[in-house]
């Protein structure tokens, strides 16, 4: 497992890091609004939930799967949680229900992928469809609004100049890194993604392990939902429909292997930075959603294509 290559920054990481650096310097010169501290806080607030979603996506991808349902699950969990908070008039109940809903939805995916052996893209694309339908059904297409006081704390409050979401996400990220790299379940997930047969031989139950993967991912997307709904102080049925694509792009840019089993989970966080910065810059420049989608898709495929090159060489030398 202690493969030196895992700890070396890969070619795509270096490329994306240098592109990012050049872009930031160039844009700071072109667009002075970019380095205003208010905008930097803004980027951090945008990046915070995306980091959680990218961590979730990263864990699923490391295990050899993919999760296309994140955007729909986040919107649904946000709606159910805010309704619960309104009904009980307790922010704690609301927050708990958001996370519980996130975990429960993801558990459905986990059960389908783990025990029923449904391909992850089918299970999660199905969830994308029915959960999206359910969100619109519950809300009638309109956002749920006016949560109890304090409900939006994670998305709106500041410690001085620092948004509350930043330290919260930092702590969760740290725990996730420890989970993935220092615990038995984390290392099992890596082994499962790398070689299922080997995992089975050393006594890992692949079905149960896949189920755990989705439970962890569901917890992380639930947390992201609290921050995202908090940021806008409401829960619309189309909260962040394309966040899973941004998360996949971040995972790819960070250098986690798309075929599973390789790449430290911290790479997902590293990958979010260029995605969030690029998104912010494009917004400042007034670039439309369409062009942003093209860039996100292009980056994902391009980076993975770049990634494939050294992997091919490795495989050949092993033979």
């Amino acid at each position, binding site marked *: 497992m202690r493969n030196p290559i895992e700890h070396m920054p890969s070619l795509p990481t270096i490329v994306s890091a240098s592109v990012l650096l050049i872009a930031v310097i160039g844009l700071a010169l072109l667009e002075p609004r970019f380095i205003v501290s208010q905008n930097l806080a803004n980027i951090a607030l945008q990046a915070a939930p995306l980091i959680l979603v990218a961590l979730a996506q990263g864990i699923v991808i490391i295990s*050899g*799967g*993919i999760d*296309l349902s994140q955007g729909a699950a986040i919107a649904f969990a946000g709606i159910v949680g805010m309704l619960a908070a309104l009904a009980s008039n307790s922010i704690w109940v609301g927050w708990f229900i958001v996370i519980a809903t996130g975990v429960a939805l993801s558990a459905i995916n986990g059960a*389908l*992928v783990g025990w*029923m*052996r*449904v*391909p*992850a*893209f*089918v*299970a999660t*694309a*199905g*969830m*994308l*469809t*029915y*959960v*999206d*339908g*359910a969100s*619109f*059904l519950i809300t009638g297409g309109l956002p749920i609004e006016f949560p109890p006081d304090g409900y939006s704390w994670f998305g709106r409050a500041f410690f001085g100049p620092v948004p509350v979401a930043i330290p919260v996400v930092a702590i969760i990220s740290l725990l996730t890194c420890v989970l993935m790299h220092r615990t038995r379940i984390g290392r099992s997930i890596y082994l499962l993604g790398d070689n*299922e047969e080997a995992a089975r031989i050393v006594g890992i139950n692949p079905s149960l392990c896949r189920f755990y993967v989705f439970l962890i991912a569901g917890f992380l997307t639930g947390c992201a939902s609290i921050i995202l709904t908090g940021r806008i102080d409401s829960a619309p049925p189309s909260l962040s429909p*394309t966040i899973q*694509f941004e998360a*996949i792009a971040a995972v*790819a840019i960070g250098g986690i292997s*798309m*075929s599973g089993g390789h790449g430290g989970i911290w790479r997902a966080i590293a990958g979010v930075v260029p995605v969030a910065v690029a998104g912010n810059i494009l917004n400042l420049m007034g670039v*439309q*959603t*369409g*062009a*942003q*989608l*093209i*860039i*996100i*898709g*292009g980056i*994902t*495929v391009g980076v*993975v*294509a770049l990634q*494939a*090159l050294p*992997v*091919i060489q490795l495989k050949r030398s092993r033979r």
Partner: protein
Amino acid sequence: MKNVLMKHSKLVRDIGPGITLLIILSAGFSYFAPEYYRQSNINNIIRQASPLFIASVGQMLVVLVAGIDISTGAVVAFSSVCGALAAVNGNAAYGVAAALLSGFLAGGTSGLFVTVFRVQPVIATIGMLSIARGFALVLSGGEPVDNIPDAIKFLGTGEIAGLPVPFFISAGVFALVGCWLSYLPSGRSLFAIGGSDEAAKAAGISVRTWRTMAYALAGALAGLAALIYAARSGSGQPTFGYGLELQTIGAVVLGGTTLGGGHATLIGTAIGALIITVLSNGMDLTGVSPYIQNVVLGIAIVAIVVFDRLRRLSSSQHPVIA
């Protein structure tokens, strides 16, 4: 003789559940909605099923070579916008050519990423999903592209001898793809590629070329489906095809095609597309809200794949590919 029987029993196993489901659904809906069997509704079902069938054939080709195409819906949106723009600014022939060509290029690009750059099919087509949807939005400015010529509208709304034109387009696709897969060496080679890359390579098949071609043809078929969608609604729209990829996967699996490659049934795909259309048509007739329809369709398609997995696990005739 025994061989013929074996062949047919295999076909029955592949499409038997699909036909049964189709009969049950039709019986149910005709009970709850008497207008189900009216000629006008039958024609309506054909019009709705045709583009889904055509796109599903593309999905089937990709699944056959051990791939998957998540970008079907986005490519439909992209091709409908390209086709409509070409038709409005040029003429109907340009429109048809642009829709098919844009789909072919989008699919071919995914295919090249899969074959040349070794990107996983899911990731390559997810990237294409974003790119194609993005281009559809940019090219159309986010608005439907209206005023397409009548010659293109005819492809979706016209009738020949009492049957809707999309029926004839589907029949053409069925015949061409069926003959290609059954009788031409290149078509047969898709089965070999899906079964085993190594074996296909050893048999002298150009794996890269034909795998890329499967993706490109899937794109072109999505473009053809886009023409029918655009013709029916009178415009090319950047919002076409949300969730279509899931429906095509559902149709393909319902038809008895194995996710994982090497095995496919064209007639089954047709039945699969028909079932999914009947399901949404029946829900339309019985007045189910579109939101509930989404919930039902999503759950139904996942259930279909679960059922298919269980069936194959119990007979354990195919290795499971996650």
